[in-house]
């Protein structure tokens, strides 16, 4: 999740008031530093829930709990996806399940089997990860994306999507173009992509990597 930019004094006051830190009218007795400290303390405790997107037509129930989606010889650039499932206080959510699915390198979804589909339980450290390939482009959804469905006891099930800041669709400027043609619900869903050169071992290929931490709200 990207950090919000530092607010100006008026915005700080509004934020502080809206979060119940201040009673309207009493603002002048607090210094700007105090306001900022209060705002930061409140902000640290309240992660915004990840924005929702549509489920789309290609979801299939019953994907395997299997993180190795890419097999040797698969066309497409290797991609590692990692992340955690958190609550709005920034704590790991217990008992979460992360389902994700995406098109192959050519933009085709597997509608009969479960290629590039997984249903994962995060590990003891709360981390989920998959080895897969970069999803391709297809005409009807011109930005590369990964679909997500995340559920956990006591939390609202979230449906969302992850996009790639390196995607030519964003024309090198995802900050400006994240909502081009209404593609992403929120700028935060367009994720920075790290590139790794890789080593000599097949288990260490040249690859892209994204980190997608998901914030669930309470049910």
């Amino acid at each position: 999740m990207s950090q919000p930019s530092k607010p100006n004094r008026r915005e700080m006051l509004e934020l502080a008031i809206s979060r119940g830190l201040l009673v309207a009218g009493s603002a002048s007795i607090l210094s700007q530093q105090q306001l900022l400290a209060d705002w930061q303390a409140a902000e640290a405790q309240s992660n915004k829930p990840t924005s929702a997107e549509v489920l789309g037509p290609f979801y299939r129930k019953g994907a395997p709990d299997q993180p190795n989606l890419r097999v040797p010889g698969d066309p497409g650039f290797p991609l590692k996806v990692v992340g955690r499932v958190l609550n709005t206080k920034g704590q790991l959510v217990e008992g979460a399940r992360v389902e994700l699915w995406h098109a192959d390198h050519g933009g085709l979804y597997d509608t009969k089997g479960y290629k590039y589909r997984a249903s994962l339980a995060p590990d003891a450290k709360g981390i989920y990860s998959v080895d897969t390939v970069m999803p391709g482009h297809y005409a009807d959804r011109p930005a590369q994306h990964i679909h997500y469905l995340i559920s956990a006891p006591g939390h609202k099930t979230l449906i969302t999507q992850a996009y790639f800041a390196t995607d030519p669709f964003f024309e090198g400027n995802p900050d400006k173009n994240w909502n081009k043609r209404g593609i992403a619900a929120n700028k935060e869903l367009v994720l920075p992509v790290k590139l790794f050169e890789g080593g000599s071992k097949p288990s260490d290929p040249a690859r892209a990597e994204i980190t997608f931490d998901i914030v669930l709200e309470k049910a």
Partner: protein
Amino acid sequence: MPTISAEAIPGSLFFSKDGKSISSKCSDGHLRTWDLASGKLTADKTFDPRSGMASSNILLEIDRKAKETRVWDLTANRQLYLLKGSDVANATASSDGRYLAISNPVDRTIRVTDLKTGQERHKLPDGLGGAASLLFSPDGETVVSANYDNDVRIWKTASGELLRKVEDLTGAMFAAEYTPDGKQLIMAGLDETVYIWDAKSHTLNRKLKGHGETISALAISPDGRTLVTGGFDVITVKNPVKIQIWDLAAGKITRTIAAPHRVVSLAFSPDGKWLAYVAGEKEISLVAL
């Protein structure tokens, strides 16, 4: 093969009861009616492009800015009422004119209202992704939602009682219709398979394989003997697909028609002699059966 040209891509197709004309709400928001004998446009009424037909007679205009949905009676040519909310994945009106059902993908419910007054009867908890198909039985007694999350729910309309939840499908059902006698419920979608359910016991009778593509539309002839399924290429709606005509009792394909793009809608004429379809072009194609 006769075609009717339209200024924009038509959506769902509705033959008039006498079979002499056909109507469709097009992608530009115009509801157009054509005379079938001459192919001439006989009526043209403009609505918001974000609108959809809940039946041959009921149109919903979805106003996202005002967060409301306007319900129109097309026969009476008047707005019936406003409903709060503009999150609409799908909507359908019962053919007896008693009920309206709206799928809301945000609060994940099916709202059933009294069609005449707009008064809410039930807010039924549905699945996660909104209804890919939403329909009433011909007698209006049951309402069915096939959710994008793959599950199908069947409720008793009057009481809101959940009669059956089908949880073992592994793909969304993009198209669903009851047979005209109301005895069977036919669904098809992502997994290229046609599912035929007993509409009373809600158990699966048969599965038909052989369409060979994801299925985006289906229609059943007025005599209940013929099924037609329309295809959807999952790479892009622009790729060519097939329309398959089935002998329903035998479960066999009797004829295949090439369609230029994803099949948006299919309809039989009331006498069953014509099949009309829209496949992504600014036209309605008519096939003699």
